[in-house]
């Protein structure tokens, strides 16, 4: 039963990803390993691009996109419902039983460890992404790598520019330099 499997996989992602949209990335890469028929490392990059340049939370957009790829519109709905179910349950429990949850010392200590770990997981996801975009096996794609360096510099200098603009710049560069090389 594909819908059930889809719901369960995204339920797990919703339960274990802390720190918002990009934190779901490492789990999506894991999903590409365990369910290669569902998504590929290649399509994850496209999913991120579309999720960043359309309205709505990135994590939800990516879940919808992934679900759609697996099982159409209903799949998109099921994956999103799976991803939000843990949130609804946990938040309602916290609202009911735990006051000042965010001021609790143990919670703070846990987050002292969780935050760097989440940055590590997102870095791992980035390495995966670069592995299909900037490299091919041992071969470095020169055009892509140079474009990457230039874009990183620009993004770090012009911090206020919306991600959508950079994605637009990327698409124009892709057409101009005839990527993927």
């Amino acid at each position, binding site marked *: 039963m594909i819908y059930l499997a889809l719901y369960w996989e995204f339920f797990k992602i919703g339960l*274990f990803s*802390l720190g918002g949209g990009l934190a779901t990335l490492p789990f999506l890469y894991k999903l590409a390993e365990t369910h290669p028929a569902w998504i590929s490392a290649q399509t994850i990059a496209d999913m991120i*691009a579309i999720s960043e340049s359309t309205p709505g939370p990135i994590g939800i957009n990516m879940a*919808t996109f992934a679900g759609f790829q697996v099982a159409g519109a209903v799949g998109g709905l099921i994956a999103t419902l799976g991803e939000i179910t843990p*949130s609804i349950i946990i938040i309602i429990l916290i609202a009911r039983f735990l006051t000042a949850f965010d001021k609790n010392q143990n919670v703070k200590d846990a987050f002292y460890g969780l*935050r760097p770990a989440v940055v590590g997981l997102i*870095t791992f996801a980035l390495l995966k992404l670069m592995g299909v975009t900037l490299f091919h096996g041992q071969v470095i794609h020169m055009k892509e790598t140079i474009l990457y360096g230039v874009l990183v510099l620009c993004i770090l200098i012009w911090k206020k520019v919306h991600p959508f603009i950079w994605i637009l710049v990327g698409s124009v560069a892709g057409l101009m330099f005839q990527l993927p090389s």
Partner: protein
Amino acid sequence: MRPVGPPSDGQHRMKKREAGLWELYFSFFKIGGLTFGGGYAMLPMLQREVIDRHHWVDEQEVLDIYAIGQCTPGIIAVNTATMIGYRKRGVLGAIVATLGEVTPSLLIIITLASILLRLQDNLWIQRAFGGIRVAVCALITQAIVNLAKKSLVDWQTILLYLLVVGASTFAHLSPLAVVPLAIVYGLMVQHLKRRAA
């Protein structure tokens, strides 16, 4: 004293209003449909809807709810919607607000995805996406730089960061295992630090 009109400007005292279920759904539908990027980007839109427009919660409450949304599992925007919905109308309110928040995503992404899947063999689309993927790499690099500034605060956190990157890349450690291990690490390090102090 029970004024229902707009609060006098400059004063943060306000009378909180009740929320209808349909109102909750529609408000969060608007928030979901008008914020790009979710999480941090939603705050201004959220404040405008739930404080200024509907007077459902006050400034301080929004910040608290937002903080809780950040330190609980799941998507921050969804956690925030659930919490506000719950405070106004209980479990049903939580569900309705959350569904409102995700509806625009569902509609937009499903439409776009179905168009794109039909066009994916087109050479122009392939080239554009060749460049877009590079841009995505660059955007995520920036996100990591920003997050690292806030989370890698001492050598213990830097060490944990390197361990997680190494173990995920070379030992194929599952992210599902990283999360509980990091919690234990955080509790232990902070405990040892306090003992040493």
